[in-house]
């Protein structure tokens, strides 16, 4: 699958060093929280399975970093980085995978269903990509009210074959809605390789069906993702309608942690093991003199400590009481 844009990062001129460091920190935190959660899964802390976003950090954080706080976000299951960027607490995420009373849904929903509307994040059901039509609605509301907000939505390569993808893209393009649709092409949909999901040259090539811009970037290169999404966000904010950005990466774990992923072509794992997006970005920052050993160590340590503290809190948090279980089916 060709990449329209090459990895950037040779020069960081004109970029805000604060912002770059913040992106780095959230990427590191994302990785630390997920590594911790993998251990928690293995140790039996979690209720069910665990979906992780290893090697998706550049896409989730890079894309989310293009938003204003008042923009809307409609992430999918490998986008912890986007949640953390917006202020989701790691312990809340863990609490969700544990069914704790303190999870954003109070234990009613669980696993990856922890989106918080107070952070402008839609909490999607399991059906993929149900977040896409909802994202068009959030964008529609912004346009309806004359606000210049945008809505950023993510889905996987496998999700592109569904009704929700096509009907949302159709509506968003016809209505020129301020949407940005990011496709996380991680080579597989559960066990299904991309060639059994789609016959188009790239996933961004599907943009032609909607008469909108589509671009494919190296999804392990956070600055490449950021630049492409930034352009799309700017376009959407200006009232010029939606775009597709495809980030190519690899799902380095199983579909979820129960899955050994033994169906994956070995070469892919090997190829991508050299392309850890967190490491890649760390090297870029180092080369540009924006990060030294000490700071890097500090950032990683702090992230690890956050993850440990989050686990401690989530473990200690209570399970919900069933008392009110029939309440809240309807809003009054």
């Amino acid at each position, binding site marked *: 699958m060709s990449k329209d844009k090459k990895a950037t990062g040779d020069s960081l001129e004109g970029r805000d060093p604060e912002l770059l460091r913040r992106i780095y920190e959230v990427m590191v935190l994302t990785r630390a929280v997920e590594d911790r959660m993998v251990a928690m899964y293995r140790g039996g802390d979690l209720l069910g399975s665990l979906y992780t976003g290893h090697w998706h950090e550049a896409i989730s954080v890079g894309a989310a970093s293009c938003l204003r706080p*008042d923009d*809307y976000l*409609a992430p999918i299951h490998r986008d912890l980085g986007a949640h953390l960027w917006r202020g989701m607490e790691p312990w809340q995420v863990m609490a969700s995978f544990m069914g704790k009373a303190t999870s*954003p*849904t109070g234990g*009613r*929903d669980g696993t990856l*269903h922890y*989106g918080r*509307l*107070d952070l*402008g994040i*839609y*909490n*999607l*059901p*399991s*059906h993929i990509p*149900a977040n*896409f*039509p*909802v*994202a*068009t*609605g*959030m*964008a*529609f*509301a*912004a346009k*309806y*009210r*004359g*606000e210049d907000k945008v*809505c950023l939505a993510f889905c996987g390569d496998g999700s592109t074959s569904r*009704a*929700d993808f*096509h*009907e*949302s893209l*159709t*509506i968003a393009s*016809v*209505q020129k809605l301020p949407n940005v649709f990011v496709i996380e092409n991680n080579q597989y949909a559960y066990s299904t390789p991309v060639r059994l999901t789609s016959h188009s040259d790239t996933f961004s090539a599907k943009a032609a069906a909607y008469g909108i811009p589509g671009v494919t970037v190296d999804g392990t290169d956070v600055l490449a993702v950021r630049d492409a999404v930034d352009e799309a966000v700017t376009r959407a904010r200006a009232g010029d309608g939606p775009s597709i950005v495809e980030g190519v990466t690899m799902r380095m774990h199983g579909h979820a942690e129960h899955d050994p992923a033994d169906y994956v072509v070995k070469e892919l794992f090997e190829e991508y093991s050299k392309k850890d997006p967190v490491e890649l970005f760390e090297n870029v920052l180092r080369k540009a003199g924006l990060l030294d050993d000490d700071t890097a160590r500090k950032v990683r340590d702090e992230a690890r400590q956050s993850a440990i503290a989050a686990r401690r809190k989530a473990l200690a948090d209570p399970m919900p009481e069933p008392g009110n279980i029939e309440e*809240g*089916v*309807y*809003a*009054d």
Partner: protein
Amino acid sequence: MPTEAPPVPVLKSGPAQELSANPTYLEAVGAALDHEMERDPDVFILGEDVGQFGGAFKVTKGFLDKYGPRRVVDTPIAETGFTGLAAGASLVGLRPVVEFQFADFISCAFDPIINVLARHHWRTGDPMPVTMRAPFGGRLRAGPTHSQSVESYFAHVPGLKIVMPGTPEDAAGLLISSIRDDNPTLYLENKYLYRRLRATGPLSMEPIPLGVAKVVHEGRDVTLITYSAGVHQGVEIAQELAKEGISVEVVDVRTLVPLDVETIVNSVRKTSRAVVLHEAAKRLGYGAEIAATIQEEAFWHLDHPIVRIAAKNTPTATSPPLEDAIIPQPAEIAETLRKVARE
């Protein structure tokens, strides 16, 4: 994160449609929608051909001129997509009204209705005030995929309200309540009644609360529990049977979810006999829920098994002799009531 909406210009003053002195069921729906759009700038309508065309049945005729394309949105044929769009818009403060061109096509939005709209509030605490309007039902010789009664597809699923008015007066008041309700609401319009049923006078734009049934004809011998087109049918038959000395109480449940069990059970306690009537197929039609509930709540008052009158367990046919053999006819309803009252 809803924010304050900017003032929304209404392009044309006065009603979107002129009402007749005794407005039809169709006019009642349109007038109530017009009323709510005028009252609340967050209310908008979307669906296929709702704009310049005014909708397949003309409910939104004149709306585009009055409210403009921003609030009267012609969508592509994409029921999944635009229902999900409505969900998203409602989540950040708008109050979308979705029109399905025929209720039959709501099948294409089943997934978002069940999995996005119905469950969202319970999962998250966020309200999702979407009203879904759909013309349903048979007797128009429109065949198996243009005549469906769809309430059973949805009544099982927690989190939706289901509204099925049987009169123009209720059509107006219940639509207003549906739109103001903070929950996803399925509002089903009996398209056979659209131009056939008229209000007795000018319409009130007072909301009618959801979840309150209405005794539309008082009686002693048997209770007929029904909704939508069953209501005027039931009342007409009750008036006929009164001449034979059979006193039928007709209860219009008006909303299937929430269901006003109290009014139903009070009536059955009085009459000791109950018949349920709807146009949907019998197997797992809503009559099953009503019958099961009545015998739970009023078993010792019953002098006769509860009888369900419903369409046969077949699709709805096009050809008149076939369709008439499938959908309950007045003679069958009257005969059943006679039998249950007297046996």
